[in-house]
């Protein structure tokens, strides 16, 4: 394609091709400290393209494609090209990843052990991970945690952190020196701003961690924690995994292993500061 960029995020290599320069330029800047795909061969190809040739210039509209595609994916305006690239990369993972069980969760690590936080959009996965990382945890990812069925270890996938709406200010306050992408107002998911994970997260991204705690955070409630029974945790995680069904038996074994080995706890929290205290208390009680 006319413009192209390659990058490796954790164990996963991507090649992104684009009909326009702008999305590639944004990726080059924000991913400048990331390595190249292993052996120069990416796991996934992403394509950002114009449906019709004149759409490159007149009201340019970015279609999302690649190795794996959703027929109903709506195009985005060119000024949201970076978001289109990130969505397309996530889509390849969600539909195509087979080496790892994908958990829709953020992850941070301390002492070689991983803390996983899962939940619906708006539960605070990304925000909590960035806040904890500001307190000395190693950031492993805010979208997907990669569970290796062969080892039971969690691999990091520290892509750009996708901050939405109020979370933008919270993250900027916690990480005043962080490198940020452009503010993308009024996207289909609200205002979005991408933040580059800190240098340590990138430097250590090839180091997996043993899962130690699985949290189900919920924002906007009185502070409370309660254990989640294993059967419930299992079912919720099957729903939080995009490739659980595709992995078949390997996925079942990986997930039942995780749930059996790691305590699952629901965490209701009213604000970031309380959440940090609740998480630290649960962690030190392990």
């Amino acid at each position: 394609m006319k413009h192209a960029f390659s990058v490796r995020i954790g164990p996963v290599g991507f090649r992104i091709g684009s009909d326009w320069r702008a999305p590639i330029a944004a990726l080059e800047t924000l991913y400048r400290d990331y390595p190249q795909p292993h052996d120069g061969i990416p796991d996934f190809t992403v394509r950002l393209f114009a449906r019709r040739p004149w759409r490159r210039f007149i009201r340019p509209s970015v279609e999302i494609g690649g190795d794996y595609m959703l027929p109903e994916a709506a195009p985005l305006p060119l000024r949201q090209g970076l978001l289109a690239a990130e969505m397309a990369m996530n889509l390849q993972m969600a539909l195509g990843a087979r080496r790892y069980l994908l958990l829709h969760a953020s992850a941070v690590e301390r002492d070689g052990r991983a803390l996983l936080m899962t939940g619906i959009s708006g539960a605070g996965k990304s925000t909590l991970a960035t806040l904890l990382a500001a307190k000395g945890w190693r950031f492993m990812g805010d979208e997907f945690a990669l569970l290796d069925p062969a080892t039971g270890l969690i691999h990091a996938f520290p892509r750009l952190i996708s901050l939405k709406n109020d979370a933008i200010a919270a993250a900027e306050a916690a990480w005043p020196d962080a490198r940020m992408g452009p503010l993308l107002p009024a996207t289909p998911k609200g205002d979005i701003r991408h933040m580059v994970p800190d240098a340590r997260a990138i430097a250590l991204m090839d180091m997996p961690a043993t899962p130690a705690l699985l949290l189900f955070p919920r924002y906007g409630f009185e502070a409370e924690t309660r254990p989640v029974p294993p059967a419930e945790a299992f079912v919720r995680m099957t729903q939080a995994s995009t490739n659980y069904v595709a992995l078949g038996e390997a996925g079942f074994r990986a997930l039942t292993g995780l749930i059996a080995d790691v305590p699952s706890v629901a965490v209701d929290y009213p604000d970031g500061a309380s959440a940090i205290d609740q998480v630290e208390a649960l962690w030190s009680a392990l």
Partner: protein
Amino acid sequence: MVGAVNDARLLARALADPGSVVGLDAAGWTALLAMARAEQLIGTLALRVDGLPMPDAAKAILADARAAAEHGRRAALWEAEMARRALAAIGCQPVLLKGTAFVAAGLSAGQGRSIGDLDILVPRAAIDAVEAALLAAGWEWVKPDPYDDAYYRRWMHELPPLIHRERDRMIDVHHTILPLTTRVTPDAGALIDDSVALESGLRTLSPNGMLVHAAAHLFADGDLAGGLRNLWDIRCLIDEFGTDGLDAEAQRHGLSREMTRSLRLVDTLFGDRKASGTDRLYIRRITARDGWGRPIRPVTRLAFYVRSHWLRMPPAMLARHLWTKWRKS
């Protein structure tokens, strides 16, 4: 040399001559893998090149593809078993078609093959009972549109697609192998009579029946989407069963032209035959894929798309069909 190939001939060569991948550089591997994914042949490729020296990154991607194909095989066989059980009650033994048939019979064409829907062939006289039995066993309609539904029932070679509400898998129930509107009329009864029983209580077409069906599907029906995979199926079937009696079988179904074209194109794409005449156009269409996995040659693609509708319907009917579709969209 490899660098000169900028379409899916790179993939065809890797399938036919796995050793050809040994010299690939990173860009060559990247292009090959993207094409193979786009043509739904990555599982097949993975099995063909297994064990050859290659970069670790390519090895890991192909190991994933092999695992995915193996899981796909199990799921397809389970789906076939579910259909067998549902139809056993009405005394109907379905004949498996395409990918599921290849893996159920353990054929080389099934090795690594991606399998989507379950395709089965049943006698036309049994179609109402089959439909009722499947609905009773948990399959549901996919297309609620009354025009589409009526169109399928009147003119197509299959029921409107059904999907299983728990397993989320589609089944295509065929009563013959080409739409009724096509100018060619294969003898579906003969295909069923000659079908072969498997130990599992399921059936497949005879080897020559499979070949004729593959050729019919490729050249007398669709717009050649997935053509490379179809031709690879044909090549594997010929390798395994030879071509004894194939001419007579093709003739019986009025598909001699399609069958001989298939054999020529297999020799061209996977051998060293030089394409001539209209075969060149077919090769151009079948290999219309670049190293980014993108469809290329839009004019050729459009021509084959138009051709597919032309083959499928007489002109007046085609006009009426497109008019109805256009009004509804």
